[in-house]
Each structure stands twice: as structure tokens, then as C-alpha cells.
């Protein structure tokens, strides 16, 4: 009976200065089992994973893996790899200066007979993996040049390059992926399961868990709550266990009648990124944007925000044409932008939460260039309470916060500036259900105040559930703009079909206005 | 009556890693030994200073720190007189005997800062330049040259030592038709000194008839370049101040002549004077500034005991 137990976690505790991240976790995972790990932001999921993989040392307890009958504990990443344990960490951990092929073989480069690295072989085999995962890129492409979603797929597909695998961990792999990539991932997980490999799967998207996992473990505030077979539970049950209270449909927010035009894009283009984009945003409106990876949604918003230069067309704000040359310009004109890659361009990781929250709005709390530290602190505290950022203090370095809490910091930063036009690019990446609800409430409040919200999300239920209108993009163009009534009649499949229907799409739709 | 007294004396060098200043130090150390034996006193002698001559502020700092450690006497050599006068005056005011060797606060003959030091032994930089110029012309004449180009090499730009270059150039140009090039500097890095000389050799080819290196590293670099190019019979090479590589070069003939200051003698005299001033309560020397002439050492005379010691004072080390 015990032979098929692959991993045992017994009484595991882990403390960081000022934080007890794990408070006595005990659980067993069997071969071929797909185990979900859920909990609120900061519950300790990622920490548990790092302990299992041996990259963080335990404060107490033990974790062992069954290696053909022997119980072993990895002491570091090298050990873990030797024991056949692989992890896909929450923060895309990938060498950005190197090629995809090389990242696949990181640390275990293939050598030819002469003992030198066999680039031909590596590139060839990598290309096969890339093709299997349908990524449509060259194995020699540098990671730095890829969109984040694709980078995430590279780290996922990387696991399949290994030979002896016993345990695979996915820490929020789908946060940045849209449906077809999620399907590819699920197929991969089933494949692993069939080979008797155990999988630990962390996600804040509960329907995914019900879809792919066998059992689910709930953590709360670093403590173990329970483990149950997935067939015994439903979404509502899990939410109540995680959050400690039942929750209604989180996408149900009040909508307000669209007011005056806030911003209008008129045929804007950036070469090689997108072409002839037109859309309008009104006060009190949530304008959703959907598209597949690389559809160019983020690129459009970056251009509007002054990160890249628009070469054709123009942007009007409140009816007046404006030239936005830099993000600073954009902010002055009342635009706020929450970027999709928080680690790259959203957060100063090695600075305190307090600085990060205030980072883009020091001009609002300073006079003659002198900052009011009291107000700085007060604002940080305010947001910490308002969107429940789990941190021992506002002086904590952001790099030490859990993923979801980092995301909340970026949102707090955006709100601090009180912009009229808010662009949210994947705002709920890695955020737990409870916090998602709060973010949606915030968005509702914003629209009630007559602000305009642009919401980009690769998660269809979210964009479809929240948007007043939905712009669907493909290959750098608008393929359709769907109004509220039409949207309510559509299924996810319908929207997906539009997004991938690049060929015919131009016939069926005009331009949003 | 001097018996049993003890003195603390600090040598504030302007470059501890230079052999020239180390030779001075040997002179001082020998003097310490002799004086201790002679008067039955004990001398606590210590050395301080920056590694390189270009570190002028570090030199000043060392001088200040030396004064702060309240010794009985300080012997020093300064590359920047302007900066040193105030601290030297302070030291004298605190009753510390301050002697300068080789590089002092003012040229011989000037008395503006006469209150800032006790005694100064030196060799005139101008004399060195003149002597080198004279030898250069004589040697070129021997080889039958009447026209050509002469290169000058030195470590760092330095006001006090500039006459070594200026006088050489002036002498040569006043007394002949040879062209003297601008000085090339190498910051006392031998490889750079060598590269500089090599580059001159390749630039001027046959036209290059003389090379003058105004300190030992310059002489080393010149000798190495000449050896590499195999032109020791075609080019007159003169160095200033010695080190072991230069001595070797002189023996080989890759250097024709070295103008040598009596570093050992200056160091010895400075120490002796400092101790005697302390013992007698006044400076025994009649003149506060004493000139010691440079010597000309060639392949022919280098092995006489007198010149051998001049070239390599380590032989004298007790």
C-alpha cells in the first residue's frame, strides 16, 4: 500500500524573519497523482514548493521522496534534479540572455563524442519539443525577445526534455496563458500522470483544479486545512475553505451607463506590432480586450502610454488630440497603466513596499521636491488594509512578498495616482479569489466615479464577465468589437473563434467607435 | 653625554616602491647603525609613504600622520613643495627636526622657506639634464652622427624634476642640429616604458639616434626596446639613476651610460645631520643647502668599486 507513496511531507515548518510562512504541514502524495495546492495569497504554497525542492531549508519537519524504495531528501536544486524532481516556479525563472534551446538544457548540456557541447543536436531536439508544444518559435531565439506568455511556455515545456522524472511541480503555470496553451499544458500533465509521475499543481483558477487534479490540499495562513479528492468538492466549497466565507459570483459587479468619451484611438499603428487600431473608451465604462498570445494588446497599450512611439494615427483624450511622448506624459494626462510583467517593469523588487506603492506619484505627496514621509507611509498603510496586502510591514522588501501580494502592490501603485483612464493588463495574475473580488470591487468603484477602465485579460470568464464592451484582437488588428448584449449571448468558444479567425475576420467586423 | 638617549625618526618617502628612494633609505639605515655605535644612542627608525610618486595627497597625509606620531626627526623628499611647506613649518614649530633629501622645498639658493626645514642635501636636476646632454652629444659625435632625432622618456610629469628634461633638450638643441622629441611618460610601468621606446624606434627608424631615459624605469624600457630591435650599436642610450636591470644593460651595452645621483650618500648625510642636530641642539652644517654632484657611469668604469657601489648601494647595506 505504502509503495505507491511518492512524497511525504511531515510536520514542515518554515520561518522567515518576522514571518511564519509554514506552520506544520503534513501530507502524502502518490505516484501518478495530480495534487492541487490552493490557498490565499501568502498562504505558503510557493514556500512549501521551495521546501519540497530543497531550495529553501526547513525550520522543522522533514520532506522525503521515494526513489525506487529508498527515501531521499534533496538538499538543493542539483539534488532535486538528480532525484527526478522538477519545478516550474511562480516567477518565470529563465536565463534571459540565452536561447530557448540552451534553456531547455540548462545545467545538463548535451556533449558529443569529443566532449564538447553539441549545439546541432540540442537545437534539433529543442525544436522538436517546441513543435510538440506548438510554440511556433525558433529554438535559437533569445528568451529576452519573447513575450512573457511564451517565456512561461518555455519553462513549462522545458520539463519534458528531462529523462527520469518522478515529481513535477507547477506553481501558477496558467496565470499568463490563454486557453489553447492551457490545453497544451493539460495534455502534458495527463501524459505525466500516465507515466506514474506525480504532479503538484498550484493555481488560483479553481475550475482548472476541478478539471485536471485528483486531490486538493487547502492551506490557510501557512497552516494545513485539509486534503480531499476533487470529486468530493465543488468550487464554492473550496472558496469557503480558502477564504473562510462563502462567495457569490465574483464577476457580478454593478455597471454604469457610459458617459462622455474619455479617450479615442484613431487608426494608430506601430510598425511590426499593430496596425490601424481604432477604439474608444467612455467614462464609467469597462472596455475589455481579448486576443491570443502575441495579438498585440499589450503593445497597443504600451504605445498609448508613451513607451513606444506611435507612427500613424492619433490618440484623443477628452476630445483633444494629444501627443504622448513618454509614460510621464501619459501620467500627466491622467492615464494609469498596470503592466503585465510586474517583475520586469512594474516593481522595484529590492525596494520596500512603501516605496513601490508611492513610486509613480511622489509629485502628489511632495512640495519643492521634498517628500512627506508621513503621507508616504500613510498611503502605503491605507492600501495595505484596503486590498489586504499580506506583509509584516510596509518596510518589507517587495521581493519577499508572495506573488499575489506583489501583484496587489502594483495595483496599489496604480491607484495611488488616481488616474482617470486606467489600463489594467492582466491585473489578476496570481491573485487569489478573495482578492480578485476586491479588485473587481475597486474597478466598480472607479467606474462609478466616472473613470474609464481598459481591462486586458487572457482569462475569458474574466473579460467576458466584467466588460461592458469587448475588443477582440488578432495579429495586431481589431477583429471585432462586441457590445454588452451580444456579449451576454456568446459563449467562451464563440469569442475564441473570433480571436483565432484572423483570415475571415476582416469581412465580418468594422471598427469600434 | 649622549649615551642612552633614544630618538624616533621617520623617513617619509615620496615613493616606497621606487629603488632610488630605497637606496636613500639604505643610506639612512647605515647611518642609523653607525650613529648608534658611535654615540651609544638608540634610534627608532621607521618608514612611511605612498607607493607611487604621483600619489601626492597620500604623501601629504603620510607626512601629517608622521607629525602626529610626534617623532624627534622627519626626513623626507617632496614632489610638491607648495603643499609640503605648511606641514613642514608646523613640524619645525613642534620641535621636530625636518631634513629634506634630493627633493626639497626650494631650489638651492632660494631662502623663502628656510625656516621650514633644518637641512637639505640634493643633486641639481638641471645638472643631470646638462650632463646627459653633454654626454649624448659626445657619444653621437663618436658614432659620426650630425643629424637625427632623440627621444626622451620619463615617469610622470613633475615640476621639481622637469629640468632633467628641459635642460637636456636645451643643451642638445643649443649645441647641435639634433631634434629632441616631446617626453613620453609611462607612469613607472616598465612595459609601457618599453612600448613607448619601441613605438619611437618604429616611427623614426634610422633617424632615431639617441634615447634618454630620465629615471631608472625609463632606462630599463629603453634598454629592453633597443635589445629587442638589435640596434645597440646604432643608437646612443642614456639612463638616469640605477637599478639591477640597468646595470645589466650597461654591462651588455644596451645602455651606454647612466647618470647617477648619489642616493645612498644623500640619505646617509640626511640621517647623520638629523641625529647630530638633535644631539647638539643645533645644525652642525654651515650651509642649509648642500649640493652633491651626479656621477657619469659607463660600461668602462662601472666595475670600479666606487662606481659599482654608486650603481648598486645594496652592496653597502649593513
Amino acid at each position, binding site marked *: 500500500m505504502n509503495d505507491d507513496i511518492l512524497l511525504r511531507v511531515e510536520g514542515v515548518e518554515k520561518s522567515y524573519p518576522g514571518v511564519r510562512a509554514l506552520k506544520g504541514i503534513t501530507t502524502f502524495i502518490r505516484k501518478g497523482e495530480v495534487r492541487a495546492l490552493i490557498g490565499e495569497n501568502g498562504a505558503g504554497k510557493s514556500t512549501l514548493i521551495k521546501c519540497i525542492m530543497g531550495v529553501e531549508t526547513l525550520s522543522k519537519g522533514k520532506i522525503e521522496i521515494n526513489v525506487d524504495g529508498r527515501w531521499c531528501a534533496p538538499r538543493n536544486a542539483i539534488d532535486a534534479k538528480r532525484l527526478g524532481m522538477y519545478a516550474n516556479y511562480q516567477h518565470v525563472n529563465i536565463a534571459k540572455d540565452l536561447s530557448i534551446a540552451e534553456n531547455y538544457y540548462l545545467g545538463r548540456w548535451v556533449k558529443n563524442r569529443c566532449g564538447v557541447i553539441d549545439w546541432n543536436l540540442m537545437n534539433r531536439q529543442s525544436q522538436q519539443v517546441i513543435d510538440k508544444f506548438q510554440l511556433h518559435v525558433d529554438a535559437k531565439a533569445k528568451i529576452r525577445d519573447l513575450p512573457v506568455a511564451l517565456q512561461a511556455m518555455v519553462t513549462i515545456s522545458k520539463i519534458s526534455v528531462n529523462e527520469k522524472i518522478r515529481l513535477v511541480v507547477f506553481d501558477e503555470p496558467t496565470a499568463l496563458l490563454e486557453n489553447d496553451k492551457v490545453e497544451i499544458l493539460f495534455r502534458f500533465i495527463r501524459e505525466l500522470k500516465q507515466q506514474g509521475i506525480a504532479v503538484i499543481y498550484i493555481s488560483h483558477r479553481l475550475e482548472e483544479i476541478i478539471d485536471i487534479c485528483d486531490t486538493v490540499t487547502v492551506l490557510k495562513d501557512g497552516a494545513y486545512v485539509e486534503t480531499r479528492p476533487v470529486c468530493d468538492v465543488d468550487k464554492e466549497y473550496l472558496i469557503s475553505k480558502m477564504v473562510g466565507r462563502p462567495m457569490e459570483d465574483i464577476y457580478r459587479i454593478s455597471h454604469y451607463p457610459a458617459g462622455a468619451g474619455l479617450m479615442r484611438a484613431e487608426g494608430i499603428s506601430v510598425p511590426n506590432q499593430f496596425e490601424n487600431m481604432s477604439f474608444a473608451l467612455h467614462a464609467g465604462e469597462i472596455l475589455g480586450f481579448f486576443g491570443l498570445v502575441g495579438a498585440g494588446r499589450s503593445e497597443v497599450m504600451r504605445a498609448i502610454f508613451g513607451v513606444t512611439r506611435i507612427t500613424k494615427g492619433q490618440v484623443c483624450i477628452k476630445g483633444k488630440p494629444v501627443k504622448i511622448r513618454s509614460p510621464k506624459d501619459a501620467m500627466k494626462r491622467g492615464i494609469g497603466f498596470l503592466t503585465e510583467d510586474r517583475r520586469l517593469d512594474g516593481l522595484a523588487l529590492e525596494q520596500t513596499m512603501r516605496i513601490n506603492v508611492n513610486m509613480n506619484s511622489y509629485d502628489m505627496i511632495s512640495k519643492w521636491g521634498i*517628500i512627506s514621509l508621513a503621507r508616504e507611509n500613510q498611503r502605503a498603510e491605507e492600501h495595505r488594509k484596503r486590498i489586504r496586502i499580506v506583509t509584516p510591514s510596509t518596510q518589507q522588501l517587495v521581493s519577499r512578498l508572495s506573488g499575489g501580494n506583489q501583484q496587489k502592490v502594483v495595483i496599489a501603485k496604480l491607484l495611488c495616482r488616481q488616474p482617470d483612464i486606467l489600463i489594467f493588463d492582466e491585473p489578476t495574475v496570481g491573485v487569489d479569489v478573495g482578492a480578485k473580488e476586491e479588485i473587481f470591487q475597486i474597478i466598480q468603484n472607479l467606474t462609478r466615479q466616472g473613470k474609464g477602465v481598459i481591462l486586458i485579460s487572457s482569462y475569458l470568464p474574466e473579460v467576458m464577465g466584467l466588460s461592458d464592451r469587448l475588443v477582440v484582437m488578432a495579429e495586431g488588428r481589431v477583429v471585432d468589437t462586441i457590445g454588452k448584449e451580444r456579449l451576454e449571448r456568446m459563449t467562451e468558444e464563440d469569442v475564441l473563434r473570433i480571436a483565432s479567425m484572423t483570415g475571415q475576420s476582416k469581412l465580418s467586423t468594422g471598427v469600434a467607435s | 653625554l649622549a649615551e642612552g638617549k633614544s630618538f624616533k625618526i621617520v623617513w617619509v618617502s615620496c615613493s616606497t616602491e621606487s629603488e632610488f628612494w630605497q637606496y636613500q633609505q639604505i643610506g639612512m639605515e647605515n647611518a642609523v647603525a653607525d650613529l648608534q655605535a658611535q654615540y651609544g644612542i638608540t634610534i627608532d627608525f621607521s618608514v612611511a609613504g605612498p607607493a607611487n610618486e604621483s600619489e601626492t595627497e597620500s604623501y601629504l597625509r603620510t607626512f601629517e600622520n608622521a607629525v602626529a606620531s610626534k617623532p624627534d626627526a622627519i626626513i623626507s623628499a617632496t614632489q610638491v613643495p*607648495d603643499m609640503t611647506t605648511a606641514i613642514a613649518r608646523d613640524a619645525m614649530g613642534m620641535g621636530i627636526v625636518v631634513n629634506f633629501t634630493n627633493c626639497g622645498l626650494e631650489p638651492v639658493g632660494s631662502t623663502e622657506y628656510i625656516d621650514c626645514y633644518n637641512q637639505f642635501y640634493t643633486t641639481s636636476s638641471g645638472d643631470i639634464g646638462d650632463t646627459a646632454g653633454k654626454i649624448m652629444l659626445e657619444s653621437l659625435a663618436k658614432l659620426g652622427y650630425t643629424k637625427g632625432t632623440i627621444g626622451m622618456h620619463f615617469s610622470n610629469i613633475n*615640476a621639481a624634476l622637469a629640468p632633467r628634461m628641459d635642460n637636456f633638450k636645451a643643451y642638445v638643441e643649443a649645441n647641435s642640429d639634433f631634434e629632441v622629441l616631446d617626453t613620453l611618460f609611462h607612469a613607472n610601468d616598465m612595459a609601457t616604458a618599453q612600448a613607448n621606446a619601441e613605438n619611437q624606434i618604429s616611427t623614426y627608424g634610422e633617424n632615431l639616434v639617441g634615447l634618454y631615459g630620465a629615471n631608472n624605469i625609463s632606462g630599463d624600457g629603453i634598454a629592453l626596446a633597443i635589445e629587442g630591435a638589435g640596434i645597440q650599436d646604432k643608437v646612443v642610450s642614456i639612463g638616469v639613476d640605477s637599478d639591477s636591470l640597468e646595470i645589466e644593460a650597461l654591462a651588455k651595452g644596451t645602455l651606454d651610460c647612466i647618470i647617477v645621483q648619489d642616493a645612498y650618500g644623500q640619505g646617509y648625510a640626511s640621517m647623520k645631520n638629523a641625529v647630530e642636530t638633535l644631539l647638539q641642539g643645533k645644525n652642525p652644517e654651515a650651509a642649509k643647502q648642500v649640493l652633491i654632484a651626479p656621477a657619469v657611469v659607463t660600461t668602462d668604469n662601472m666595475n670600479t668599486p666606487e662606481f659599482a657601489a654608486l650603481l648598486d648601494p645594496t652592496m653597502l647595506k649593513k
Partner: protein
Amino acid sequence: MTSQPASGNQARFNARHLLKQTEISLLMVITVLFLIASLGTANFISAYNLTNILKQSAVIGVIAIAQTYVIITGGIDISCGAVAGMSTLMVALSQAVWGLPVWLSLVVALAAGLICGLFNAFVIHEFNVPPMIATLGTQTILRGLIKVFSNGGTVSGINKGFAAFATGSVGFVPNLAVVWLLVAVFGALLLKYSTFGRSILVLGSGREVARLSGISIRRTNYLVYGFAGLLFSIAGILLASRMNCATPTAGMGYEMNAIAASVLGGASLSGGAGSIVGTLLGTLLIILIDNIGIQFGVDPFTMEVVTGLVIVTAVVVDQLKKRAK
């Protein structure tokens, strides 16, 4: 330490918050050296020697503060010593050769420093040249220019009153040190309380983050290198007063000491971290080692070995303490 809940503003004023870990470690190392020297030598604890140490720290100290600012942005300024040297020369030339009044000579020197700093920013920002190379270039150019302007010689003839500044003092504190400490206090406050200070911290943590947070990278770069240039030239002015002349080698090799002082004090060469108090202590440590060596009469070669060991030890102590936590 950082993870304690902030119990409001009162908590800000206890020692553990006032000094960061690295600063405490440095203070420890310095105290140990101090004790050794005061017990082991007769004249270390004398008013003359203590003022000496302060006086000697001033020039490097001011440069190191500016260097810390640059390092926080993730840059580095190799030209610091040369800029200081150029300012020293400008003071000397203005006073001795061009016959300008003292105040004007200072203006000339400061202008020279500012221009050099802005030139650095120009090359770094407009052409995206790595700061290390840009400032190395500037250093080389300046060293050449200094020799061209001074004809390679010492420029003396500095105004007596101006030169006397370096030997004067306010109470026990030498004038030079007063300037240094004023710059430090100003620098620390600017870093902590100004939007400029925050901008450089954020810039150092990530260019993209800074840009998307509406911080103008151009503006911040020009400001920080310009500000550094100004401080370098203040150091140069102090140096002119201290040396009572300008030598073509003035300020040479200061970059290493200044960078070392910064990094000892907790600055990270990859940007985003640095402390003025730490830099102050780092400077003091470097100067102290030399002073103590001479007090003990250690021979200069051995002294170099010891200096290297002390510098490494200071950082090792810090790291071990951090680890022990």
C-alpha cells in the same frame, strides 16, 4: 529588522532603525581599530591626530558621497578623481594665473565640475554608453586636458587666505571636515526626503520600472551625474586649499578609494542600494588604516597587505553578522 511591523513614527528613532546593519558592522570594525590604536600607541588619541584623521577624510569623503549617488543608480563614475583634479587646477589657474578673486575661482571650478558631470550624462544617456566606459573616457580626456592647461607642471601661487581655509577649524573640527560633514548631511537628507533621491533608488532598481513609473530617465541621469560633478569639484576645491597648489596628478587614483568607501558602506554596484552614513564610515575606515599603520610604525609594504586584509575583513564581518541573523 525590516520585517517588524512599523509601530508608527515613534519607532523611527531608535538606534536599530537609525543605522542599518552594514553601518553597525563598519562602526564595530572602526571601534576595534580605534581601541587597538589608542591602547597601543602614545599619540593616537591626541587632538592633533584626531583632527588629522578628519581633515584627511574630507576630500575622499566628499567624492565617495557623490560616488554613492551614482552607484545607487546602477552607474559608476571613474572620472571622479580627474574631475576633482580639474577643479583643483581651475582654482589654481583662476587665482594664480588669471588673477580672479577667490569667489570667482570657486565658481569657475564648480562650473568645470558641473560641465564634466553633464558631459558624462550626455555620453551615457544619449548614446547609451556603459557608465564605466563613458567615465573612463572622460577621465582620460580630463587627465590630458589638465596637463595641456597646466603645461604638465605644478601651478602654485594660490591665494593665502584660501589656502589657510584648509588649516583652520571650527572648534575642534577642521574646516575641511566641516564641509565634508555638511555635504554628508545634505546628501543623506536629499536621499531620504527628496523625490530626486527616490528617483535614483528606483532607477537603480530597474530602468524599465522607473520609466513606466513616470520617472524621466534622462532627467535623472543628468541630475545625478551633474550633481556628482558638482560634489567632485567641491572635493577638488578642498584639495586645492589643502595642497596649496595644483599638480597634474591631483586626484589620481581616488576612484578606487571612493568606490571602495561606497561599497564598504553598503552600496551595491548593481544599483538600488547605498547609504551616505555607510559611505562616511567607509571613508573613515580607509583613512584610519593608513593613520594607524604610521602610528605603529608598520613598514609600508606590510601595511599594504594589512590594508587589503582589513578591507576584506570589514565586509566579511558584515556578511557573517547578516548570516547569523
